[in-house]
């Protein structure tokens, strides 16, 4: 019997290979000079002959395809993702500079939407069919129809433009010279709107999942035993039933992360938040293919790592899962 983790590792490797292959094959399918296909016409004009020769050499573009692929794999795993002509810096550095902002946004949104979804799901599933359950259910179902980027626009208009309560764009007040606590507060103020948009857009998934597990879990004998022992509702709700309802949520954290990252791409564009989303949008406008490829690879790696961590967490939380397959 293989454990869950052993079973899933090949999947993650295949996923990584698929991404790397897309990155490798796509530019080479385009007609014309490989350098031009990889970097685009504008980039080629702006390049010095030295840079061209360097890129040609480091990615073995003058050799047969299979050799190119091996070199490409080698370079990628060393962190050489090519050269961003627009930022005139190595792609890896450009992306790394933007990554912390996206991680802050995605991390906060993931924690908030999971936490909120689980708590509401537990409360709602516990009171299935009663008025509070129905209110939360219809409210969140309605919310789940709104794409996160539309929510972001509405929040921007209401809180940024009309009420003027929160900043419209960016992640910091530029040239403010703030430091320490004031700086943290400034970052937080800029974070509120984008994080709210993402949280509101993604809370329904976790909520529905927790609620439906909760509905089946509360029928199990151990819950009845816990109640029969005279334990207070709150303890049965969270320690007995809720804990079991948490499992499918953790299993799916990796997938939620993928969705939230996708949502972040759009939300960042709306709030001009200086993370990977804005970088992607800018790269799209300037046809900076190296950056687009780098972002795809990095996001894929992030999602895969998150899935792997979710597997580890699940195996710890429920030993049965170890041998479930």
């Amino acid at each position, binding site marked *: 019997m293989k454990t869950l983790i052993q079973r*899933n590792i*090949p*999947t*993650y490797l*295949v*996923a990584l*290979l*698929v*991404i790397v292959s*897309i*990155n490798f094959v*796509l*530019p080479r399918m*385009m007609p014309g000079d490989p350098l031009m296909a990889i970097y685009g016409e504008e980039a080629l004009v702006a390049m010095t002959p030295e840079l061209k020769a360097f890129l040609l050499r480091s990615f073995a573009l003058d050799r047969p395809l299979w050799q190119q692929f091996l070199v490409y794999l080698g370079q990628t795993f060393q962190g050489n993702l090519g050269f961003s002509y627009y930022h005139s810096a190595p792609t890896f550095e450009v992306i790394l500079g933007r990554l912390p902002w996206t991680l802050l946004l995605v991390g906060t949104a993931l924690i908030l939407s999971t936490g909120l979804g689980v708590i509401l799901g537990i409360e709602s599933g516990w009171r*299935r069919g009663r008025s509070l359950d*129905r209110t939360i*259910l*219809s409210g969140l*179902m*309605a919310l*789940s*129809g*709104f*794409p996160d*980027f*539309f929510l972001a*626009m*509405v929040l*921007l*208009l209401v809180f940024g*433009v009309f009420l003027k309560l929160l900043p419209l764009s960016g992640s910091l007040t530029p040239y403010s010279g703030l430091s320490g606590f004031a700086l943290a507060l400034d970052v937080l103020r800029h974070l509120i709107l984008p994080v709210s948009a993402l949280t509101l857009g993604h809370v329904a998934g976790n909520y*529905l999942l927790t609620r*439906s597990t909760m*509905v*089946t879990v509360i029928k199990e004998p151990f819950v009845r035993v816990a109640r029969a022992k005279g334990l207070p509702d709150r303890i049965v709700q969270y320690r007995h039933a809720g804990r079991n309802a948490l499992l499918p949520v953790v299993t799916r954290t*990796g*997938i939620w992360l*993928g*969705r939230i*990252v*996708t949502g972040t*791409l*759009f939300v960042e*564009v*709306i709030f001009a938040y200086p993370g990977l989303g804005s970088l*992607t*949008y800018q*790269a*799209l*406008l300037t*046809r900076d*293919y190296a950056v*687009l*490829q780098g*972002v*795809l690879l990095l*996001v*894929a790696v992030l*999602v*895969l790592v998150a899935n792997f961590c979710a597997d580890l967490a699940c195996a710890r939380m429920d030993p049965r899962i170890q041998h479930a397959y």
Partner: protein
Amino acid sequence: MHISIRGQFRTNRFGQAGVVILLIMAALALLSPVLAVDDPNHQTHEAFEPPSLAHILGTNHVGQDNWSRLLHGARTSLLVGFFAASAATLIGLIVGGSCALRGGIYDAVVMRFVDALLIIPAVIVLILVAAYVNPRLPLLIVLISLLSWSGGARIVRAQTLSLKERSHIAAARTFGGHGWYVMHRHIVPDLGPILVVEFIHSFRRAVFMEAGLAFLGIGDPTTVSWGSIMKNAVDYSYMGVWGWWLVPAGLALSLTILSLTFIGHTLEPMMEPRLMEEAVA
């Protein structure tokens, strides 16, 4: 697996609302040549007009009629959704069904690939591919369906595996019914409800992806899309024109996605009969 789709909707108000909204959207899309007052791409000098009798939702930054664009946006959205969802469901059925029926190495290898595809964030791949090929609508539909069939394949496979063991299918096999015959004669009809749910989910994802990509400015600029309408409107929101430019497109998109969510949620119990007893709303 004898669950009536109509029965699901009879008791579920969410489902009813979803169907009504979707039908209205479809009607608007179908009637758009009649209801639109102008060619959606016809540019005039009357830019940023507020709503009036001639332009009930005003005009945009290049003087195009917002109402006509909204209607044609519905067309694009539903067209992409319908065809991408059909293709994705079909691919899912073929891959999932063949994996369950054949088993062995074929199953193991293909399902590894399916799982991998499930994890990869589709929208980001789509952005990259679209940046290279700059797809027009038919190609966009192909790309979306190629990236969104994997969830369906998993569900179809799981269900087919359990169907395969049932007596009527075992009987068909002992009579010499083979592969494709068993598949289309016995398994596909029994998979019906699951395929419908999968179709609805793929539909929703495709509508969302189309709007998202158009929002980022990917694709054919002459295609009218809710996503690109919203992007243009947001860029001019400081002019106070968002009320009749941004909001209608955003609401139309949200309502479409909402209606599909409701329909999907209504049909969900058909895939998980344990939830059947739970009457939602």
